[in-house]
């Protein structure tokens, strides 16, 4: 899933400072799971804004809503009237949701309330970590199901570098060395010989460096 993190309240305040009729719009999918942009977070953020405006002696009218998927055009029409009634939409979706809203409502200002942080998973309650970098050419078959592009600090394909110690990365004792994990796992699977081969130079053109990515499936298009 996509993991998001709410922006600092001060930054949000600055962003919305010129507006008095707001729609705070959450997304019920990925960012709700990372407790950043679901209905609950919409309600809390809306209350914080109201309180802040009250203390500043400035009026604000806030509508609160969360839709199933902000990244999907078909769900965006359901908030048509709410959008029409506000000056600005503060979206608590990921960057995809914000852009989908901006595309669907070209005359409306849509602001991001979250930072879209990474594609990852919930390790435990309150802890999320990155797993995939969306490089466009999956190599997990060669690395024991652990991704060095997303999880090695240097994205090395022929790791580990000389900074791997006690299973940790040189950048921090809180960061696992994914190459240690890869080696441990391949050893357990009796596939360590896979790492005798030099991993060839990667084609980054499919990872976004070849221009914005798009998929067209002729068999599915009308």
């Amino acid at each position, binding site marked *: 899933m996509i993991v998001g993190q709410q922006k600092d309240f001060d930054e949000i305040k600055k962003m919305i400072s010129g507006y008095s009729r707001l729609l705070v719009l959450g997304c019920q999918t990925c960012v709700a799971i990372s407790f950043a942009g679901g209905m609950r977070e919409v309600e809390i953020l809306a209350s914080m804004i109201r309180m802040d405006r009250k203390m500043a002696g400035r009026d604000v009218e806030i509508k609160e809503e969360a839709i199933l998927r902000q990244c999907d055009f078909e769900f965006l029409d359901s908030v048509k009237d709410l959008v029409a009634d506000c000056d600005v939409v503060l979206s608590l979706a990921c960057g995809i949701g914000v852009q989908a809203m901006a595309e669907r409502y070209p005359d409306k200002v849509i602001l991001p309330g979250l930072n879209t942080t990474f594609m990852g998973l919930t390790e435990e309650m309150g802890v999320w970590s990155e797993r995939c970098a969306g490089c466009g050419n999956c190599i997990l078959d060669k690395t024991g199901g652990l991704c060095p592009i997303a999880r090695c600090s240097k994205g090395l394909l*022929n790791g580990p570098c000389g900074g791997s110690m006690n299973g940790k990365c*040189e950048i921090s004792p809180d960061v696992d060395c994914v190459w240690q994990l890869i*080696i441990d796992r391949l050893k357990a699977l009796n596939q360590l010989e896979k790492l*005798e081969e030099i*991993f060839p*130079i990667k084609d980054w053109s499919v990872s976004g460096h070849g221009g914005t990515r798009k998929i067209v499936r002729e068999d599915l298009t009308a």
Partner: protein
Amino acid sequence: MIMKSGSNLEKILSSGQFSVTAECGPPKGTSAKVIQKKGELLKSYCDALNVTDNQTAIVRMSSLSGCVILKQVGVEPVMQMVVRDRNRLAIQSDILGAVALGIRNVLCLSGDHQKFGNHPTAKGVYDIDSMQLLQTLKHMRDEKKFLSGDDISGEVPLFLGAAANPFADPFEFRVTRLAKKIKAGADFIQTQAIFDVPKFIRWMDMVRDRGLDQNVHILAGVIPVKSVGMARYMRNNVSGLSVPKELVNRMADAKDAKEEGVKICLEIIEQIKEIKGIHGVHIMAVAWEDIVPGIVEKAGLMPRPIKH
């Protein structure tokens, strides 16, 4: 014998002589004098001098420029190149320029993560890794082609180096990694600094078991320690270094810490020289370059072979 680069370092190593290299950190500024002085100082005491490439991710004068300045004072440089700061286009073009300017030795490195340096918010490049950098330069030299397959006009005579760290984890994989670097194109290796000699000996045993010492020249890295603070710092804070507690204690108990540091360094060199498969020593006297001549002399490594 057919030379790959014809560099002094290559000649000495291929003739079976024990080699000495040292390190020269470029300045955080524009003065050529800093490098000239280090060059003049070390000229007669080493066969080649490494110029670091934004080491610890702190911006300094470029390695390529430092190498050219060294050449001007008659010192053979080893150009260090990290993949942290440049993509495959910049790498290949820098190599063409380096060869044009007479640089013959290149040490291929990943580079310390940018988080450590003075620009921790920088975007790391890592288009290719250090293994692939070796492959790239070998391909340029042997095939006279760019990665794209286009022809390179002119020769690319290079002697290719790589790093090896026997003290990083996982220990057993470190020999496999060395084997891969040799396969990728490494002609010589400069190891991480050795303080834990028994562990280094164990690693070298494994290296010889695979016959790798026959295919590459291994130069053992040493760092003369200047103070107990430095020893402690390296023991506790530098990832990929193994500094035994006894060494820290020796430094702490010493009346003259600098003298003790040199003594320890000499003892390590003495032990290293006896290890089969070690073809030289690489002295990394970080911010203490003027100690190198004394160490080389006392280690019985003088005179150095005359450069041709």
